[in-house]
């Protein structure tokens, strides 16, 4: 991806790239740290259809939604030769009993044979979390295992 970085004097920085369909998508990062998501119009590539102000938390959550599928797709690609092994993303939803508890507390590996290979938080990937890794609401786990094991893991993470 060719990301263009354009300084906006007195305001901040614009980072965007052209998509396959000719539109541009990106962000304007203001000097005070708040972020705007921008998407260009289809009939006028110079103008913006939307510019949505996002808080840091919102931007992180959105990055998780966008980033996790890519990671999962990549892992699925890697695991294609092992029949029966799947990769799936599981999110720690509000009300999950594991909000504020560690990966070790879930005992996922022992109970389901599923391994957590990464956690996405605020747009950042935390690879190979240790058993001491503490979960928080909104985390997205990238888990690898059999499809039965993964179904089981989703239940555990949702209801304990």
């Amino acid at each position: 991806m060719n990301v263009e970085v354009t300084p906006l004097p007195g305001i901040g920085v614009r980072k965007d790239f052209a998509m396959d369909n000719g539109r541009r998508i990106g962000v304007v990062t203001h000097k005070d740290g708040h972020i705007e998501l921008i998407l260009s119009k289809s009939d006028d590539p110079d103008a913006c259809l939307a510019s949505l102000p996002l808080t840091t938390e919102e931007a992180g959550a959105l990055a998780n939604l966008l980033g996790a599928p890519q990671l999962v797709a990549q892992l699925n690609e890697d695991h294609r030769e092992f029949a029966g092994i799947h990769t799936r993303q599981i999110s720690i939803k509000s009300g999950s009993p594991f909000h504020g508890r560690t990966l070790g507390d879930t005992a996922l590996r022992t109970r389901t044979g599923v391994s957590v290979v990464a956690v996405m938080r605020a747009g950042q990937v935390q690879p190979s979390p240790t058993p001491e890794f503490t979960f928080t609401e909104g985390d997205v786990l990238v888990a690898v295992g059999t499809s039965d094991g993964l179904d089981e893991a989703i239940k555990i993470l949702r209801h304990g």
Partner: protein
Amino acid sequence: MGHTAFALIELGAVFFVLGVLGRLAGRIGMSPIPLYLLGGLAFGTGGVLPLGDIGGFAELASEIGVVLLLLLLGLEYSAAELVTGLKRSWMSGLLDIVLNAAPGAAVALLLGWGPVGAFVLAGVTYISSSGIIAKVLGDLGRLGNRETPVVLSILVFEDLVMALYLPILTTVLAGISFFGGLQAVGISLAVITVVLLVALRYGRYVSAVVDSPDREVFLLKLLGSALLVAGLASAMQVSAAVGAFLLGIAISGSTAESATRILEPLRDLFAAMFFVVFGLNTDPRSIPPVLVWAVALALVTALTKIATGWWAARRQGIGRLGRARAGASLVARGEFSIIIAGLAVSAGAVEGRLAALATAYVLLMAILGPIAARVVEPLARTVQRAPAAAPA
């Protein structure tokens, strides 16, 4: 009632009315500057409600207002941004000067105000209001647009030109000889170059001098250094406003951000006072005779700014709609035009009619600018759909 009691009541009334006017401006989504000017006109001589007791304070407050306006403008830019802006947009910048200073100078000469008047009015019609424009671009959600960097770099160029223009203006107004004027220009050019170099290389040391983790200490240091630098610059004939602007450029990084946050309310207070004082010193009865000229200037310079933006955006390979948007965004004039006119009037080098013309002009442009920026898109789309549009 004692003198102090009177002054307090008058000052309170002025601020309260300004607050109400500001709220009104926010309601209809326009810049409060024209309303502050109108407030000043109403309070002043020949107005509805003449004020007498707060003259001394108001004068000083308006001086501080100018210093703070320019200091915060300088804080918005880093030296690196200024240098790249200069490199990227000097051609558009020069076109901007030619197209937009000429109408002002021509009208001043036509009205017989001489070369000094022409120099002043050229500045008034040239300089766009970066404050109003940045706000309008944000409100209209155009920060992500491709033409926006073009608009912003023209504004950067204009602000740098201001840093050169103001010292020349102060010497011209002081009636110093041509040779003295050249000397002043030389000094200010040297000072600006030195400040830019210092800010690029050693900005962090300047920031370290004023920075403090304690809010109160930080505020006092900031305000103290700004007024010191402004006063010294004024003594060196470089104009107080430019001194403050350069100090703002030299302060960089996180210090600049926290400085902006701390000083914004102060700037709003004193700058409002500055517009009021300008209005106070203008007799509303002097406006009607120059109104025709103000309207003509407003129309012509709106078109010349649109042409400037159009040309600058075309050079960056931006489509027609974007060019029209860039042009219309630049129309607004505001605080700096008033600063220039204010300097000229307080120096007593130009006649009162110039102040009246500048006031009427800024009133028109501060209102017209945001409206132009808003309506340009639907208008341009209609024109585009119309068959057989004129080739550009």
